[in-house]
């Protein structure tokens, strides 16, 4: 399969059909979730605190959903109206903007606690219109982004090797410090690259995962060993009552979803043991 970046500009590529995939394809949803979770981990936000975040290239709000689970308030921006409409239908909690990141972030200084962007930055490296200049657009994006961050907090973006050098260069020029985190560098399938940036401070770049941390590690990144995958499945099976109630509430808000079962005292309760 060719990469979407080579097919068409984002506002055309992510049309209604493509947007619908992002609500139905469970694999896509799963990957987006994992990437977002890892991004949040890398952001290293203070625990138990609701933060104000920006999601660049939020698309249909999959990553945003994860931010809402974390209890954060967020703003999302994306260039594809169809994707944003899907996000709206899914009942997403953040504020959405139809905007082009290459035209800069339009927020006042010191707005955000952190910024994430899942699989979106590479679009900036393409020249989709005659008047687009990737380098200028990257520069504009990073300089305006630097301006609107609360000093000392960080941004993280999963990215690809193809564009890494260009993106990193633009970010450093805009005044960010930080570096690249590589998870599972020895595996072709599980390898993921994250760009971790700090605004206004010199921070420690977190270490990437190697898959050798042991089975007891609660990995939120891409799965590596069989053991880890098994652990994760176990983890997924024991979602609590609170989680279920939240999920049901969300499903009720979504338009065109199947009917949600009423909440009773049995909701989220364990089944009786069978003989």
């Amino acid at each position: 399969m060719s990469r979407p970046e080579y097919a068409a500009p984002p506002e055309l590529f992510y049309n209604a059909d493509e947007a619908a995939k992002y609500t139905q394809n469970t694999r896509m949803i799963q990957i987006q979730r994992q990437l977002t979770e890892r991004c949040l981990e890398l952001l290293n936000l203070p625990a138990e605190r609701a933060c104000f975040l920006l999601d660049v290239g939020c698309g249909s709000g999959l990553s945003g959903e994860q931010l809402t689970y974390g209890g954060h308030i967020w703003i999302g921006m994306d260039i594809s109206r169809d994707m944003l409409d899907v996000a709206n239908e899914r009942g997403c909690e953040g504020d959405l903007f139809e905007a082009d990141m290459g035209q800069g972030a339009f927020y006042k200084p010191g707005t955000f606690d952190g910024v994430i962007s899942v699989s979106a930055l590479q679009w900036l490296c393409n020249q989709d219109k005659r008047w687009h200049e990737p380098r200028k657009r990257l520069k504009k994006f990073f300089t305006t982004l630097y301006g609107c961050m609360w000093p000392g907090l960080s941004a993280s973006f999963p990215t690809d090797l193809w564009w890494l050098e260009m993106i990193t260069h633009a970010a450093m020029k805009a005044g960010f410090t930080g570096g690249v985190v590589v998870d599972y560098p020895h595996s072709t399938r599980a390898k993921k690259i994250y760009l971790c940036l700090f605004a206004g401070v010199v921070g420690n770049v977190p270490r990437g995962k190697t898959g050798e941390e042991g089975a007891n590690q609660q990995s939120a990144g891409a799965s590596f060993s069989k053991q880890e995958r098994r652990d994760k499945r176990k983890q997924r099976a024991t979602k609590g009552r609170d989680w279920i109630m939240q999920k049901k509430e969300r499903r009720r808000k979504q338009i065109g979803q199947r009917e949600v079962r009423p909440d009773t005292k049995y909701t989220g309760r364990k089944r009786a043991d069978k003989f």
Partner: protein
Amino acid sequence: MKLLTHNMLKSHVKGVKDGYPLRLSASKVELKEVTFNADFVVRMLDRIVWPVLRQTAIEIGQGDNLPTDIPADAATNEEFLRAMHHVLLEVLVLEGELECPETGRKFPIKKGIPNMLLDEDEV
């Protein structure tokens, strides 16, 4: 769009010096309950521009019980924090328009999503 977000917005049209605040005119407003989080609201005290928030809230008919200035004991005054929480997070503008104060460029809001895309000559 929440008023918290509006308070953070500035115009990004080419040649604009300050571009703050964007004028908000709303034709459709919705109220939606959000869980109150005192810690979050207190931290937002430093980041928002109060006169702008109050003015916008009054313009769209939601700012009846907001004081002219932030009270001195704002961080512990629960009544004030709740009022602020209401205007910041629970008032949603669904249809309307944002207008750049310097160039007069209008950004339409449809289904709660403002369109901030600029044309070639505005970048």
